[in-house]
């Protein structure tokens, strides 16, 4: 499968998508799909921590300061615990939703499943036959040992 993938790339046949039962790193890198989710996650964390800290300081220091045994209202060291935990929590929830949105994953049945065994043991390369030379693509695939080439 990797051979077919490389050859298709060489001949500049545009690959629409690749479906694999497990992540194949060479394809993930060469296919040119970029994911900025890690960067986004960092920003979520940054802003979440600021927001949580601001909330704690607003409620405990500005809005209704309470005297707990003469301790300072702005007890930054003990605010850190809640800030860390809630930051982690926000990153998780927000990046999960981002993942669901960007990878277009939500409960649905509308998406075409090109080959039902792509989640079992088949590796599927999807080529759009309108925009590329379908025969050429098919011959490359056959050459590199494709089990079946389907046209739809």
């Amino acid at each position, binding site marked *: 499968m990797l051979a077919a993938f490389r050859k298709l790339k060489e001949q500049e046949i545009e690959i629409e998508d690749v479906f694999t039962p497990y992540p194949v790193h060479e394809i993930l890198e060469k296919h040119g799909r970029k994911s900025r989710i890690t960067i986004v996650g960092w920003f979520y964390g940054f802003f979440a921590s600021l927001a949580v800290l601001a909330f704690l300081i607003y409620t405990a220091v500005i809005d209704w300061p309470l005297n707990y045994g003469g301790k300072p209202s702005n007890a930054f060291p003990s605010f850190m615990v809640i800030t860390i935990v809630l930051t982690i929590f926000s990153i*998780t929830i927000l990046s999960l939703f981002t*993942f669901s949105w960007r990878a277009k994953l939500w409960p649905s049945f509308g998406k075409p499943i090109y080959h039902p065994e792509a989640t079992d043991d088949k590796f599927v390369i999807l080529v759009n036959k309108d925009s590329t030379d379908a025969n050429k693509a098919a011959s490359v695939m056959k050459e590199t040992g494709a089990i079946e080439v389907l046209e739809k």
Partner: protein
Amino acid sequence: MYNTEVRGPLILGNKSLSQITADITSPLYARPKFWWIVGLGISSVMMLLGFWSIYVTVAQGIGTWGVNNTVGWGWAIINFVWWIGIGHAGTAFSIFLLILRQEWRSSINRAAEAMTVVAVGCAAIFPALHMGRIWDAFFIIPYPNTRGPLWVNYNSPLFWDFIAISAYLLISASFWFLGMIPDFATIRDNTTSKVKKAVYGFFAMGWRGSSGEWKRYEGLSYILGGIAAVLVVSVHSIVSTDFAVSVEPGWHTTIFPPYFVVGAIFSGFAMVMTLMIILRKIYKFEEYVTDAHLDKVAKILIFVSLIMGTAYLTEIFMAWYSGNEYEIFTFFHNRITGEFTRQFWIMFVFNAIVPQLMWFKKIRSNLVIVFIISILINIGMWFERFNIVVTSLSKDYLPSAWASYSPTFVEISMYLGTLGIFIFGVLLFFKYIPMIAISEVKAVNKYQLKKK
């Protein structure tokens, strides 16, 4: 990265990819066995007992428990800490080992995470009921209320606990679910039953295994892994500050956070061991969860047991070395000798000494003995929490306020109830969810085949 020569093959039997799918999903399609139904029945009865005890506690109050003014924390807190400890296995397993790129985790992590989610759910029941008036439980949420607005005390470890446990439950559940999406898709595409196709298809959320999906999936699992690793350490540290921040002999020590975290990982791994031995035996997963896998878990247990032993000895040494008479009394006259001698020595022997038997390869490879040791560890860890909670409280500074403690039937049945919930949850997991992460095992298997 996938260099496994040192460790030998992770999956035996030269499986093809479709064979892996078929092997792991077969229990989902098979009819439930007799023992499964019996187990479900027994655990349901235990759950009913638990619900009865919850009803009694809510309807009549904490007075139905054995706790008193002196020993204000009894079985409820012991069991809470115990369950949270067991609940650390999943995250410790899947997340620490994910970050350390230990590929052998992939056969075990799914079951460990399932255990985590159920155990943390069980744990959360106890502090909620321990509040006494559970219908006022929402007071702990800091929201703009009509009482001032009076905000909660952010300096209190009890509030940290509330935040940490709820975050932990949600995060470990979502991490678990994320890992299952590709496997649900596999079932959706494999099954012949219409109902299964619809249900698993719903949860697979349209997963197709495209490169964009995988790329983001991997990115996300590293984000979640990286940040949740902090949580593994922080949750039980926060639980330990519930104790360490108060001025009680035996509690007020700086050793508590690391001591609790290590203890949690210890009991969690022991429970993983128990569960995996059962699971691989029943479902014939010996080729996925190999003897080598269990051997590694056993080695981790030996090491963690040494840390536990060191922690116990450090505590005792510091009590003596501090010269504080209350500390000395608690440790030497109320734990090592005195009223709670039995509980102390059960804890010490089961946690620090018995696991050391696994240094011997013969014992480590005899799964019956390993199974017994893993259960003894969990008993020992329960007694550790008993020691911490009850012995310190029962006899502290004021001899006239000394009291003893024994649980009532309500408390015992609440504990049995959570055990029932746990068994029930694990049985449902056996039947309805692929017990081993299919896509991860496939990836591991591929690198193995390539090497040949």
